[in-house]
């Protein structure tokens, strides 16, 4: 009976409404971000293109870390070693690039990306073959990768090729389009869009939403899980590269990226249980978090309250989300 309307002509609204409903969370976030930007301009008239570029450079490492976390969370896992992997890839990059030619720098980037893939492969293989919960394995591996980072370089230092630094600095086309934002979008799109359209992407969502069902449908669960961790390693390496690119050095001590990436993933509408969400939401969430910090600075609120605000926003948003879900499941 309800099959008939499928053949009936579909207006643009028929396509748009279900799409909007599916992506309500992300759309809400984008709307909120737009509101925040307008508000920022209102309270700080001098907020201009260069501030926007600063914002984009500032969020780039965390945005890539959030993407890395999102991939593995979609597959039903969690990776607590992202911050350490970023530190390791960043110091390897900075150490190898220091004082070398620009061409050599390209080779270094390739090496670092391969390194990221390898780190992810080791994490994933350990999770799959030892059957120890993801959170425990990656927690322990975070010590290992942080130790390796300290072995590579005991103190912050090193250098970065000029082209790498220029890749994230400044803007393209118009002053209002920061280069680093373009880099972020391009990198994520190039890696994720082909995968999400492929068998692998579908399998990642499948094992995340119901592992047993996916297994019985013939999805190679272990292999898919490892692939998800490999992708996380790759994005962590990209985040590490962006750290080196934006600071010009490598720092062996992991930043606050691991836990912040978990927070951003949840704010971005990805379910920690796996299988639900996308990569765009977490990126927007990272920008929103950064904007809130900026605004609090402009309002000259004690920067320590920024922590409080971050925590409260995280709790508030998640509570609203789960509350809405509870009402939906009851209705």
């Amino acid at each position, binding site marked *: 009976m309800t099959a008939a309307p499928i053949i009936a002509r579909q207006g643009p609204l028929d396509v748009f409404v279900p799409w909007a409903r599916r992506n309500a969370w992300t759309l809400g976030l984008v709307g909120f971000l737009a509101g925040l930007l307008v508000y920022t301009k209102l309270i700080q008239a001098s907020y201009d293109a260069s501030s926007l570029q600063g914002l984009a450079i500032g969020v780039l490492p965390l945005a890539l870390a959030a993407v890395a976390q999102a991939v593995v969370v979609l597959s039903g896992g*969690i990776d607590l070693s992202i911050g350490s992997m970023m530190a390791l890839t960043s110091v390897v990059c900075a150490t190898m690039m220091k004082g070398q030619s620009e061409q050599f720098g390209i080779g270094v980037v390739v090496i670092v990306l391969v390194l990221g893939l390898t780190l992810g492969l080791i994490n994933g293989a*350990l999770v799959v073959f*030892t*059957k*120890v*919960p993801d*959170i*425990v*394995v990656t*927690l*322990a*591996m*975070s*010590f*290992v990768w*942080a*130790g*390796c*980072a*300290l*072995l590579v370089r*005991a103190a912050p230092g090193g250098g970065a090729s000029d082209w790498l630094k220029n890749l994230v600095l400044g803007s393209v086309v118009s002053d209002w389009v920061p280069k680093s934002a373009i880099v972020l979008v391009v990198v994520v799109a190039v890696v994720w869009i082909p995968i999400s359209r492929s068998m692998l992407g579908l399998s990642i969502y499948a094992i995340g939403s119901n592992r047993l069902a996916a297994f019985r449908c013939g999805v190679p669960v272990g292999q898919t899980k490892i692939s998800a961790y490999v992708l996380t390693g790759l994005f962590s390496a990209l985040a590490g590269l962006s750290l080196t690119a934006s600071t010009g050095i490598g720092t062996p001590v992991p930043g606050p990226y691991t*836990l912040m990436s*978990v*927070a951003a993933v*949840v704010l971005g509408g990805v379910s*920690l*249980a796996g299988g639900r969400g996308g990569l765009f939401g977490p990126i927007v969430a990272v920008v929103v978090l950064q904007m809130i910090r900026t605004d609090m600075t402009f309002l000259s609120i*004690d920067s*320590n*309250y*920024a*922590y*409080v*605000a*971050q*925590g*409260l926003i*995280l*709790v508030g948003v*998640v*509570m609203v989300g*789960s*509350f809405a879900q*509870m009402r939906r499941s009851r209705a």
Partner: protein
Amino acid sequence: MSAAVFSNRWLSPSAWRNLFRDWPLLPLMGLLLVLVIVIQLADPGIVTLPWAGVIMRASVPLAILGGCQTLTMLTGGIDLSVASIASMTGFVTATFVHSPGGWVQGMAIALVAAALAGFVTGIGVGIFRVHPLIMTLAMSFVVLGFANVWQLQMVQTGAGVPGELRWVGSNTLFDVIPYSLLVFVPLTLLILLGLRRTGFGRLLFAIGDNPIAARLSGARSWQVLIALYVLSAVLAGIAGLVISGFTNTASVSLADPYLLPSVAAAVIGGTSIMGGRGGFSGTIVGALILTVLTALLTVLGLPEPTRQIVFGSIIVVVAAAYTRVTSES
């Protein structure tokens, strides 16, 4: 014939597996013993009674924080706010040293604040069904933020760790028995008996093992969870007091290095992060193992990076071996 059966039973791997499954503490104690023997071989004469006292003293705060993780992990949760709550409690207590009320008043205020933080966490986890990972992570930001604000308020008055806390955290009886056991032993008895003998303890296991079954059998899981997270926060606060006495410092990030090891102690101790399986006695041994391991790596003269790598690798290996040995089927 009976001899053959006997030897078969004791030599076959499945027999060992059964033994370890029934007595999960045995392999852990064995590992602890092996580590002690190795450290004695690496540095002959190091293992003495005072050394044991030093190890115990260093393990106490880790074991209490591991207890927070154990209790929350039994229900399928985790508590990432223990470090910031512990630091906050130690710090706030220290800021009251020169105030008219004295440090006891400060301690009372700090523990009430910790309990309040735990209460809010419990409401989020129990009533609003927020994932414990996220809820406690967010709470750690909130607590850290408020502790920082408090620090700025208190910057003129100055702070110091009260002598009584230093005594509890650092001193030992006859150079062997640390006074922190005065805090730790009652807490341990409370947790162990609470988990085994009380309805609350059984409810923790029930909720972690099968939340739906627990709800259908009439358990009010939201009440249990609120009580659990308040308890966890207060335990973390007590651990924070011990840590500040142990290190004779008070800062808003004092306990941060304990966060990940506390999870590791519970995991090595055999508590399943999925909930419903585990106990506090394993966590205590886990904390001792981690402390002895750290001491061993220091004795071996390994540089800090290598120590971290070995530390992480051993957690993975122990967790993997433990899962293999005690797994069903």
